[in-house]
């Protein structure tokens, strides 16, 4: 089962959902703090749900305050980077480019894609953490040798 957990993680890395930063987070886990990464992920999804909501509302208003949108996305990109959410981070970068170009159409399109990536990552990580908890703390808390 522990091998299964490792394989899932490797596939998330290989497919680009997660990057090296996720591994760095796992390195910070120990026996006293075996769920650190899951705790960070929980905070991330809670916080990013709030940002998504804010951006949705801002876009729905149709006023396209690009500065404000860029500001939200700066926060979103920041936390996505800190957790290693690679694909989400890429969408954030694209969204910001469209903001700077004042391209409303591009923003809308990118945001749709971003929400998709975000939802996919959330599901995959939920599966991963659930499996990791079942597999037992010791093996998954450390980087495989």
């Amino acid at each position, binding site marked *: 089962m522990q091998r299964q957990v490792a394989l899932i993680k490797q596939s998330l890395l290989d497919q680009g959902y997660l990057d090296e930063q996720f591994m*760095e987070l796992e*390195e*910070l886990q120990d026996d006293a703090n075996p769920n650190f990464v899951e*705790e960070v992920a929980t*905070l991330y999804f809670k916080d990013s749900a709030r940002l998504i909501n804010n951006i949705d509302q801002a876009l729905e208003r149709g006023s396209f305050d690009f500065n404000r949108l860029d500001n939200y996305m*700066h926060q979103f990109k*920041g*936390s996505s*980077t800190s957790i290693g959410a690679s694909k989400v981070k890429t969408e954030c970068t694209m969204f910001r480019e469209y903001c700077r170009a004042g391209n409303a159409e591009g923003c809308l399109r990118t945001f749709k894609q971003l929400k998709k990536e975000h939802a996919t990552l959330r599901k995959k990580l939920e599966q991963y953490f659930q499996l990791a908890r079942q597999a037992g703390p010791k093996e998954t808390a450390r980087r495989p040798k």
Partner: protein
Amino acid sequence: MAEVMRSETLNISNNTSSLASPELLHVLAVDDSIVDRKFIERLLRVSSCKVTVVDSATRALQYLGLDGDNNSVGFDDLKINLIMTDYSMPGMTGYELLKKIKESSAFREIPVVIMSSENILPRIDRCLEEGAEDFLLKPVKLADVKRLRDSLLKAEEGVFKNIMHKRELEANDIYSQLKRAKI
């Protein structure tokens, strides 16, 4: 609290080490991102630092007692050895916080490190010119934190050694004076 924290071996004169306790740095971390706060707190704990985390520059100033209100805690009890702050924060930025700290006679000696997700050279220059100890690109690495910690501990050790050396010189001076007096 200051008395409990201060090691007896360092209690040698007015110029004691400012370490919160032997070998333990107390770091004040400032970041408006909840994810980054959790992350930096963990990095610092893993590096054996005592950590206080706040979510804004305003709160940081409140904690330090620099917001104009009366100090609830004296400076001695705070014993902050390092401040690590995010650059881009709503309200007061990390840069503005840096300036306020460097303007304060009580806290200007505390090293301030700026963290930012953006690698903007003029920004980095501005921070360093204003007296920032270092500028770290996010995501911050454990190696960065350990390097900071080690250099600060070394500096504290240097202060301690200087104090011991000074004490030695003073002791020798008194001894020579006594010797001369006897002759």
